[in-house]
């Protein structure tokens, strides 16, 4: 996480290829959401970060690309796929409170879960930073639970952790098992 080097930029074509790659593997065992015992919100779960293995991203980026989550009281959970020292490549947002948004296909949504992709061909911020484009998959629905959002995110972007069954939501305030045992 320390970014002692300045943020790096990926080549647009490489990034495009990366999104099209099928599949991407999640290393480090099954992807499981863990309860956050410090917060009294049933939605306050976290996803311990995983290494996302990609053959197409240049090694320097691919080796340090991770999927992780961040939770806030006001926006719910967001999942990110980021290379080290760089803005996210893709992101899943549980909510969208700020008016409406349009998807790449032109459909308009209000407060609805969606995915973000960095868009190198749409320049914003005086051309300094790439824009984003939003996508809504059929797997998404209003008031989606964190586990279903993660499930949809992983399915939509072909991110596999080797399992075929859906990701199970954590039991309320129960410590998830499985991660510690994995690989022993």
């Amino acid at each position: 996480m320390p970014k002692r080097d300045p943020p790096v930029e990926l080549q647009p074509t490489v990034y495009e290829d990366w999104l099209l790659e099928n599949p991407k593997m999640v290393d480090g065992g099954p992807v499981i959401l863990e309860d956050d015992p410090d917060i009294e919100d049933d939605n306050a779960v976290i996803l311990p970060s995983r290494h996302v293995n990609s053959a197409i991203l240049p090694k320097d980026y691919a080796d340090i690309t991770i999927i992780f989550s961040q939770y806030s009281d006001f926006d719910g959970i967001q999942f990110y796929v980021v290379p080290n020292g760089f803005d996210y490549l893709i992101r899943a947002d549980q909510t969208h409170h700020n008016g409406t948004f349009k998807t790449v296909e032109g459909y308009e949504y209000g407060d609805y879960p969606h995915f973000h992709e960095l868009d190198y061909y749409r320049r914003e911020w005086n051309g300094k930073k790439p824009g984003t484009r939003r996508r809504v998959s059929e797997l998404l629905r209003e008031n989606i639970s964190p586990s279903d959002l993660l499930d949809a995110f992983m399915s939509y972007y072909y991110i596999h952790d080797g399992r075929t069954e859906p990701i199970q939501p954590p039991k309320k305030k129960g410590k998830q098992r499985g991660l510690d045992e994995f690989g022993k």
Partner: protein
Amino acid sequence: MNLVNDIQLHLYKKIKTEICDSVSYDIAGRNAIEVLTPFLDWKGAPVSFYITEDGKITDGGRILSQLKSLRAIEDFNNWPFRTSFFKQSCIEEIRGRLVPINDDPKNVLSYIQGITRLPNYFEPKPIYSTVDRYPDRVRSITIGALLPFAPSGFPEVERLRWASEFTKDRSIPLLNGIEVHSDMSPRRYFRIVQIISHATSGSTDKKQHVEAKILHPVLWKREEPKVEMYAIVETLDAYASESRALLRQESGGNIIETCESGADKEIARLLLEEPPVVASA
């Protein structure tokens, strides 16, 4: 005399306007607003914070949630500079949320800079397969190398089961009540096979892993001197010289590096080797 000229003033105003214009707000959930700042976080994205409907400034638990997700929360909890950093940045932690100590604009500015910088002090620790799956990889290549030695009369499924038996863990109860483990089950009972993984972990984790693996044969040898240890490792080069020396010493040089060709056959040999014949009286 140092008077400010028009060019300087023009540039100054332009930059000031740009910085001020970079601050904006969005509507967030629970009637809060999200204030976006021009500061960039560890991944190069703008940092934001929330103002609740009753006028409280908070990060909504986001920063600590990130640290938990990135498995850096323990480092943060044990951080010796935590108190002074919080004081310097006017940050308070209240039930998992980082908030400014009050809403004085100067303090809020320090708070924003503080939450922007905070995650930069900690390394993320993603879960890597190279740590966890190396033992599976070793077992897989070993089964492949064992199969040609399976009894020829066996059907395919039985041959696979026969080979898999050698690659299972073995627990060895000691007289003092402790149980030690071998990562594989060789024919020679007093042979202990340890798969050394964690090649891509941090140096401390790697060192601790090697020490933990060495402990089992050491404990067993105290009771039974004829115990012999075999270490299977991807490459010794991945480990510190201290760990390499420890492995060499305790294994008596019985180290198989799977990056070398023929390593699978060597593992199969050490598993299949029959126990020495004991001369009867």
